[in-house]
């Protein structure tokens, strides 16, 4: 089954609504708890990144009997060095933001750790597409 959500630009207070809705559906479908947890963490990280770094975007979710596939597409600034962004601890957050506890550099590593398939495509000035799949 296919689900689609729009993540709004600048709406930090509403970030996480799409992951929350997906979690609800997965629970109703009877997806095992550890799998839901992985999807929840990976998708939340990706969704929040879309709000903070891009101008929001679209989340498409496809739930199949054996896996969940999530694609997040934005038209934001793009990531200049993806390999760098994948590293633990890497963050573009300012020192002030880090002092506040942001920018631990765990966003993408968390997505990778909690997915069975992960792919990120980005073009500076055009946008970023993140693909996450978790096996059921």
């Amino acid at each position, binding site marked *: *089954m296919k689900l689609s959500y729009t993540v709004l630009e600048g709406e930090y207070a509403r970030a996480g609504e799409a992951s929350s809705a997906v979690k609800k*559906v997965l*629970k109703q*479908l*009877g997806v095992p*708890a*550890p799998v839901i947890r992985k999807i929840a963490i990976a998708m939340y990280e990706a969704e929040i990144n879309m709000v903070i770094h891009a101008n929001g975007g679209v989340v498409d979710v496809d739930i199949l*009997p054996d896996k969940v596939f999530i694609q997040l597409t934005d038209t934001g600034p793009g990531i200049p060095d993806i390999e760098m962004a994948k590293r633990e601890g890497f963050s573009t957050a300012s020192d002030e933001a880090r002092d506040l506890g942001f920018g631990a550099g765990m966003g993408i590593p968390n997505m990778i750790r909690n997915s069975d398939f992960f792919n990120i495509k980005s073009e500076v000035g055009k946008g970023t597409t993140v693909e996450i799949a978790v096996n059921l």
Partner: protein
Amino acid sequence: MGYMNTMQKHHSVELIPDKCIGCTDCIKRCPTEAIRVRNSKATIDENLCIDCGVCIRVCRNHAKRAVTNGLDVINDKRFKYKVVIPAPSLYSQFLRNTSINAVLTALKRIGFDDVLEVSRAAEMVTEETVKVLKEEARLKPMISSACPAVIRLMAMRFPSLMDNIMPVAAPIDVAASAARRMAMRKGYKADEVGVFFISPCSAKATAAMYPIGMEKSDVDGVISIADVYLPLRNIMAKLDPSEYEDLCQRSFEGMGWAATGGESADARIENAIAVDGLENVIRVLEQVEDGQLDDVDFIEANACMSGCVGGPLTVVNGYVARNVLKKVRANAASIPTDRGRAVDIPKGSVNLRLTKKISAANLQRFGQDMGEAIKNMEDIEAIYAQLPHIDCGSCGAPNCNAFAEDVVLDGIPVEDCIFMMRRKVKELAEEMADLAKKMPQTMTGD
């Protein structure tokens, strides 16, 4: 959904059918969407009810109640020695008398042989909680096991967080088991001792009858604060302070547990979240599930606003009760330390741990396997798309989404939605009008 309208197994919240007028107040407020109106009466789905008591609170016809024992239980001849274990929220109910000994003396005069304060047990639970956090906790955050409505909610809606539940017994169970052992040391046999809990809420009443995380509870009966309030008040009004027995066990820290924040304050856990009200609890648990609160040590979650003092079986408004509780504790702390009896509960004499793993509820409402569940979910989405999305409740379901589920999973006719019915009538009427315009061939032509 189930269709039974009397009390369900494993639940204390029930409907009084004669009082229910079939309005939609409760269905829309139930946090687990467990209620439907069928045949003009609310029906509670036993698989979904968590006994939080919100429906008891919101029903303007008082058609919901929690099944508790009532004061008659004191006359039960099976018990030769009766110990009452009052929840600390009880002390917060008397605006004009904040003496703990007054409340406890009055309780004894109602017909109990001894008193053991649940707040005393709460302090033992606190010690154990601190120990677990220091020595054993593998997961962050650990979530308090004290509120049974929250635990039932988690079993249903947050299956991935079951391992985060603090493996420590709830104060009421520790108090009950300590009370029985106390009486047994006086020479009574285990089954001659009756332990009665004075409860602020329906969820604790259920948990006493159908324990969570243990085989059997030591609680023999549950009496609601609402039922004991007037008798207590009447006795207290007649008591002269010189008649107060010194029954208070000086567990003033433990008393703090009755209001939100008290549990973590008692344990001196700085990095804790104290959350109350089921909507807020759900939001915080969602964040835990998303991995956003991995650096928090402890979450104290209460289903009721203000905590247990705001329980559905209390008498006083929760916010007022909180103020009274503060006064009770302040007054009590000024009692000289040589007063107040220290109750001897030897270490190791009562079990402080959950003995049974709390497991997630296996609902499988949407289908036996993923294929079937996905198919049903797609059908639900398709029905939902046709509905008006104004969540009016006229169909008996709390919102259009729940109604779409009922249509697909329970075979409820889609015309139970008055908008769908109206659309169908309109289509039929248009069809009839079209038909009426058609003349038979024999009558047409020139």
